[in-house]
C-alpha cells in the first residue's frame, strides 16, 4: 500500500482575478521507504505539495490519501492526531522550541502524540542522531547542524511512516548539510521510513532515489534512479 497518494490534487488561493493556482491536477503515488525529492524553482508548488502530503493543508480539488485513508473531511483533531502519529516534520529553520532543551524538544513530540516514556525515547532518538551528551542544551547552545539533528530526532522519535523535510539543508553549510543528509539516508535505510523533501540543493537531489520536478504547479518530470545514489562524499 502506498504511504501517500495524491489523486487529481489542485490547490488555489484567492479568488477572481487574484486567484493563484499553486498546484494543478497532481497525481502522485509515494511508496513506503522512498527517499523522494520535490524540485523546482520558487513558486513551482513544492511547499504547497508538501503541505498537502503532510496534512498541513487541504487541496481545493482532488484527494490525498495517507496509508490508504482519505484525509478529506477529517476533523482538526483527527488531522492533528494523524500528524502526531504518522508524520514527522523537519523544517528549513529547524523550528525548535527555544525555551526547551534538546531532550525536551524531542520529548514534546512524544507527548503531543500521547505516548508514554517520552524522556527515555527522546534520549534514544538523540543518541541515534549522534547527540549523546548534548541533551540538556537549549537550541541557542547548539550549532545549526546539531539543531537540525535534534529536529530529525524530533521528527523520528515516534517512528512515523512518513517524514516531510522542507529544504532541510538550506540553513546549513555544505559539510553539515552532507552530514544531515547522510543521517537521514541511514535512518531511511535502517527503519524504512519514507522521506519526502523539497529542495533547491543539488546535493539533496544526488541522494534521492526519486526526483519529482515541478514547474508552474504541475509535475514536469518524475525520475526514479535504478540504483541507490552514492553516499555523501563518495561521488564528490
Amino acid at each position: 500500500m502506498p504511504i501517500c497518494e495524491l489523486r487529481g490534487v489542485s490547490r488555489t488561493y484567492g479568488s477572481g482575478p487574484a486567484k493563484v493556482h499553486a498546484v494543478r491536477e497532481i497525481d502522485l503515488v509515494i511508496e513506503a521507504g522512498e527517499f523522494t525529492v520535490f524540485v523546482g524553482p520558487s513558486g513551482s508548488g513544492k511547499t504547497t505539495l508538501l503541505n498537502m502530503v503532510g496534512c498541513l493543508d487541504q487541496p481545493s480539488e482532488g484527494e490525498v490519501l495517507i496509508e490508504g485513508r482519505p484525509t478529506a473531511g477529517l476533523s482538526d483533531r483527527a488531522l492533528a492526531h494523524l500528524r502526531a502519529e504518522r508524520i514527522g516534520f523537519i523544517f528549513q529553520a529547524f523550528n525548535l522550541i527555544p525555551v526547551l532543551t534538546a531532550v525536551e524538544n524531542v520529548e514534546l513530540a512524544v507527548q503531543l502524540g500521547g505516548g508514554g516514556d517520552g524522556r527515555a525515547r527522546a534520549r534514544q532518538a538523540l543518541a541515534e542522531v549522534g547527540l549523546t551528551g548534548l541533551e540538556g542544551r537549549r537550541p541557542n547552545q547548539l550549532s545549526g547542524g546539531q539543531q537540525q539533528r535534534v529536529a530529525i530526532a524530533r521528527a523520528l522519535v515516534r517512528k512515523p511512516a512518513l517524514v516531510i523535510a522542507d529544504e532541510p539543508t538550506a540553513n546549513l553549510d555544505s559539510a553539515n548539510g552532507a552530514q544531515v543528509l547522510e543521517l537521514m539516508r541511514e535512518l531511511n535505510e535502517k527503519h524504512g521510513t519514507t522521506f519526502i523533501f523539497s529542495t533547491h540543493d543539488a546535493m539533496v537531489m544526488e541522494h534521492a532515489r526519486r526526483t519529482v520536478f515541478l514547474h508552474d504547479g504541475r509535475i514536469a518530470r518524475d525520475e526514479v534512479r535504478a540504483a541507490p545514489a552514492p553516499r555523501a562524499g563518495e561521488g564528490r
Partner: protein
Amino acid sequence: MRSSSLVRLAARNATRKPTRTLLTAGMVVAGTSLLVVALAWVEGIFSQMLEQGTDASGHVRVVAPEFAAREALMPLYENIPDTGPLVEQARGAPGVLGIYPRITAGVTLTVGDEIGDVFGLAVGAPREWFTERMDADASLAEGRWFEEGADELVLGATLARRAGARLGDEVVVLGTTQDGSLSPVKGTLVGITRGGNALLDRQVFLPLPKMRWLADIPEGATEVLIYGGHHDDAPGIAAGISALPAAAGLTVQPWTVREPWAGMVKTIGAVQGFLVFIVVFLAGLGVWNTMMMSVLERTREVGVLRAMGLTRAGAVALFVGEAAAIAVLGGIVGVALGSLPAWWLSHHGLTLSEQLTSNFSEQLPISATLYARLTPGTMVGSFFLGLAMAVVGSALPALRAASIQPVAAMRHER
C-alpha cells in the same frame, strides 16, 4: 498532550521575555492588590453600617401592622398598648438575648426661655438598651448617661450644638401625645454623645418612662426591639417570636426584610460586583495586550506545534496556562501587597471630617471612622480573581493562537 508538558512549556514560555512577563505580572499584582484593598474596604464599611444599623434598630422588631405600613410618619397612635406580655414571653424564645420597648418621635427642643426651633428625633428606651446595644458609654463626649426614672436626658452632639445646650441646662422637649396633643417634658441635660454618625448625633435620648409620658402610652411602645447573639440569627429569632401568643396580630420583622438594610445587602453585592468587574476588566486588558504580542511573535512556533499534533484546544491551554502561571505568582504578590494597607485600615481606619459626615443621610448611620475588614475569604477571593484576570486577558490571544493553521510552520522568514 499531557497536562504536565503543557504546564512546563507554559512556565518556560513565561521566562522567554522577562520584561514582558513582569509587565503581565504587574497587571495582575496591581489588580489583585487593588481588589484586596477595595473589597476589604467596602466590606468593612458595609459591615460597620450593618452592625450599627441593626444594633440601633434591633435584629428583630415587633410593631403594629399599621405602624409598619406608615413608618415614615412615625405614627404614635399605631402602638403596642401593652408591651409587658410580649417582653415576658419573648424572654423564653430561642436565641433571644435582649428585649427592649422603644418609642421614637419627632420633637423640638427648647433650652432656657427661648422657644425652640431645633428639631430632632426623641428616642425613649430602657437605659440598658442605650448601654448594652448602643455602646452609650463609649459614645459619651461629655457628662454621663441618665438614671432610669430621673428627670434627665442626653443629647447628641449635633443637636446640643444647634440648641446651644450645655451640661446642667434644663431642656424642654416638645412633642405630641399619641392623639396629637402637644406634650412637653423637661429634663436636665446630663450627657452629650458623639456617636460618630449623623443619625445618632441628631437625637435626644430619654428614659422610657419619660418618653411614655410624653407620648401618653403608659404601658406600651411603638416598637419592641429584640436581639440575638449576632444579626445573622435574626430570621430564626423572628420565626420563634412570630409563634408567641403575645405576638398575634403584630408584625415581626427581621432586619433582613427592613429598609434600608435589605437594600443595603443588595447594594454590597452590586458594589463589590462592579469593583470586581472594573478591576478584572482593566487588568485583563493589560494581560490581553502583552499576551497578544506574545502570540503574534510566536505564530510560526505555534504552527510547528500544530503540525506536530497540538490541537486547537491544546493551543488555547498553552497560552491560558502561560498567563495563569504568571498570574499565580502575580496573585500571591498582589494579595500580600494589598493586605498591608487593608490590614492597616482594618486596625486604624480612616476618619472623615465632621462636616462630611454631617452631610450623610440620616437613614444610614455611617461612622466618622471607616474601617476595612480583611478576611481570609477576601484574600483567597482576590487571588482567584487575579487568575480570572489572566484567563480573561489571555482568552482572546489564546483563541487567536488556536486559529493559527499548522501550515504556518512551513512559512519561511525572508
